[in-house]
């Protein structure tokens, strides 16, 4: 398994000299890429390295910046790849990978709902889980204000 990881790492470093490539302790190749090259990187990974199965696109809010985490499998080589892309939280725009992996469509729509990240070139950029007229902000951001009534503290000492 690690042979494939070595090969993948080699190809990635060769093709994209700027990116940080490492291997996690769980046997996954991890790539930290700047957001400008994500479309090229995705296409390269999909077509040259046979990572054909996108399992998820997750957003994470690190307060100073947002991060998008793509987890991709190669069904042929039994390898896993994680791509991490940092996105500016104020002006969150990143290229969509939905044209490359069709299944990314809904996952990106979800990230758009939850984090307010705009995906350029997305085929159908509409809210998916939230209502279409939702005005309350982006729920998974850390600065999201929950307006529901709070329960008071449940443990007191007399």
């Amino acid at each position: 398994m690690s042979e494939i990881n070595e090969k993948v790492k080699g190809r990635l470093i060769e093709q994209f000299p700027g990116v940080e490539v490492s291997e996690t302790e769980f046997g996954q190749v991890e790539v930290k890429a700047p957001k400008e090259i994500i479309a090229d990187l995705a296409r390269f990974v999909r077509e040259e390295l046979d990572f054909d199965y996108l399992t998820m696109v997750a957003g994470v809010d690190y307060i100073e910046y947002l991060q998008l985490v793509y987890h991709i499998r190669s069904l042929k080589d039994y390898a896993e790849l994680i791509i991490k892309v940092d996105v500016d939280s104020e002006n969150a725009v990143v290229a969509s990978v939905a044209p490359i992996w069709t299944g990314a469509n809904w996952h990106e729509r979800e990230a758009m709902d939850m984090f307010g990240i705009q995906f350029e070139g997305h085929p159908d950029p509409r809210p998916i889980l939230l209502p279409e007229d939702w005005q309350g902000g982006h729920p998974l951001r850390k600065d999201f204000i929950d307006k529901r009534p709070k329960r008071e503290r449940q443990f007191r000492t007399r």
Partner: protein
Amino acid sequence: MLGGVLGNVYNATKSLIKGHLVTLKELRTPKITVHYPDERLELPLGSRGMPALKVNQDTGLLNCTACGVCARECPVDAIEVEAVVGEKGRKKRYPAIYNLDMTHCMQCNLCVEACPFDALEMSDAFEISRYDLDDLIFDKEQLAEIWKTHKAVRITGGEKL
């Protein structure tokens, strides 16, 4: 071609009849319906209904010392505890208020696992529907009553039932 069609018809008829025989057989097998309020199923040991407060058999008092670990551990904040510390005549802390809000409780057993004093147990009381939502907030007397009238066990980690 006609032979093929006839064969298909034959096969289809045969499998249709087989399917009907299955349903016919089921006409006579015993039913699994339980007429619930009239008959009841025997609940297995450890079946989780709602939590109940354990009463000490010797003293007749609650085991609870109002430490509040259950309230902290509860994911949905269903437990409300008000502790009384150092009152005259009693050495131990005890709960002045111990309310369990069954409108929030999801019967997950986490409070029982967290309790360090063997004061909470999971009872098999599941018939807790009430006409009024406020009646679903159980106070400590009611919880003790449930412990007395129902089967209750405490499972914390790893042991056999």
